[in-house]
């Protein structure tokens, strides 16, 4: 019966690869570092494997391996998610507003101060039209 089980596993693996290619090819270059870090946290699922081998460990060598695997995998999964979140928090549509500064007023001022630049004004207004 192991062959059919393996076939199911292989099918899941191959289809997941295609899903991965499809989803990830749409991620913009701006987010490639957080993407890699997010992928990193996802392979932290190896923690599930590390936990399962602790069940079957019954001698010193087994315990050492289980400990190392659990430690490695936990570091991977915890660190991966935390650092990805930390990075993504920095991506802002607009600069963080300083106290007493109205972003709309800044945009308006920029439009006035740049009469020769149509692009600047257009960019400014389109940006202010979006929500942060």
């Amino acid at each position, binding site marked *: 019966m192991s062959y059919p*089980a*393996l076939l199911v*596993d292989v099918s899941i*693996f191959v289809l*997941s*690869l295609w*899903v*991965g*290619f499809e*989803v*990830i090819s*749409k991620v*913009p*270059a701006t*987010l*490639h*570092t*957080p993407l*890699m870090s997010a992928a*990193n*946290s*996802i*392979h932290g*699922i*190896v*923690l*599930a*494997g590390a*936990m*399962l*081998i*602790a069940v*079957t460990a019954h001698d010193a*060598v*087994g315990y050492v391996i*289980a*400990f*190392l*695997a*659990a*430690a*490695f995998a*936990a*570091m*991977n*999964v*915890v*660190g*991966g*998610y935390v650092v990805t979140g*930390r*990075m*993504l928090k920095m*991506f802002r*549509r607009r600069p963080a507003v300083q106290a007493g500064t109205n972003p709309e007023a800044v945009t308006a001022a*920029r439009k*006035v101060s*740049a009469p020769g630049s149509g692009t*600047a004004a257009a960019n400014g207004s389109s*940006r202010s039209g979006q929500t942060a």
Partner: protein
Amino acid sequence: MSTFDWVIQLVYVVAASCFVLGLHLMNTPATARRGNQVSTGGMVAAIAATLAIVIHGGLITGTGWIVMIAGVLVGGAAGLYSARTVQMTAMPQLVSVFNAVGGGAAALVGIHDYMRAGSSVSATTSVTTLLDVIIGGVTFSGSIIAAGKLQGLITSAPVTFRGARVVNGLLAVIAVGFGAYLIAAPSAGLLTIVIVASLIFGVSMVMPIGGADMPVVISLLNAFTGTAVAMAGFVIGNWAMIIAGALVGASGGILTKLMADAMNRSIRNIIVGGFGTGDAAAAVAGPGGSVQSIAADDAAIQLAYASKVIIVPGYGLAAAQAQHEVAALAEVLESRGVDVSYAIHPVAGRMPGHMNVLLAEANVPYPLLKEMDEINPEFSRADVALVVGANDVTNPAARRAGTAISGMPILDVDHAKSIIVVKRSMGHGYAGIDNELYVDPKTSMYFADAKKALADMTSAVKTLVG
């Protein structure tokens, strides 16, 4: 199949869906944070389900519990601490370390399963176990070497010796050969040889790769880790691990291809070739043609009276830690009404997308960060292109045949009305060739450290406009 197994498998399917959805939400910066949260939710569910399996099975020993919990606490604390404290410039090292531990854990799962099953292991399980151990082992040692090179603990110059390729080939043959033999005749002793050969192969694979090729290497090792985790999933029959590993393998594969294309290198060339020089590669040589230099005041006049400025940050900017200075200059210019945007080449920085993170950290809004294809048509409308620490990716020679960088995608900086290049010296980039941009009559060179140069320009602009 019991009700319990049904529930567990369904939770795994939900978790896998969360991973896919999480990656999907990363297609815009606005939804990316939610994506990470969805993915985290999936992970928590998968780990909870696994914990339920462990408890439900009732076979784990007391020592097993202690070992497992202690491992999770120690590793989790290390991961949390490093994730909270890491500098954004050191991000590639951290990703490498996470690749190493992920690959290492996957290999350990395979090793444990192999030793436990002994000679009763089936041939199919042997194949996946050996793939797991070999790929995981190579990833573990290779990623540690990559992290060491990025951190500067190991020279980032290519380290190679005569006959290195023969040794590499031999190691691969040992790992795969013994592996094949093990499928027919399981043996713990021989498995050790496979493990050792894989670990040495990882070291000897990454040592000859230079600092400039790091974006490709990290991406490739990321793909390896994903594959190793998927193989570990095959070994212990865990679907969540198979799906997650495949997703990461796909992600790493795509990024590897993108990076290699952006550097005009084939993946084979990088792995086998082992060229690509270190960071300090600054063979000083003057290009044929006259170079004009510029002072801070004149640069400030050009920038302050421009209507459109495109900033081209390169690795030099990150190395000088000048991302905050460049953001400050841009802010002063923007307050004057200058339209400022950033042109980001795919390989600016040490890993895919690295420059974007560095600028995001310096509070630059992401809509200003433009990808190569998006910004290139805009250079002809720019009054000033300010190049900071970027070299080969701005060299117009790439458009001609017969140069070291021919065919490499570049930023069309030379289409701007005038160009200011901030650079420490006339040294070469990684490709080791003269940059024709520097002798363009429209180009002025500002010879200084990026951090100091940008600070000087900012204060000059401020003085100039009051």
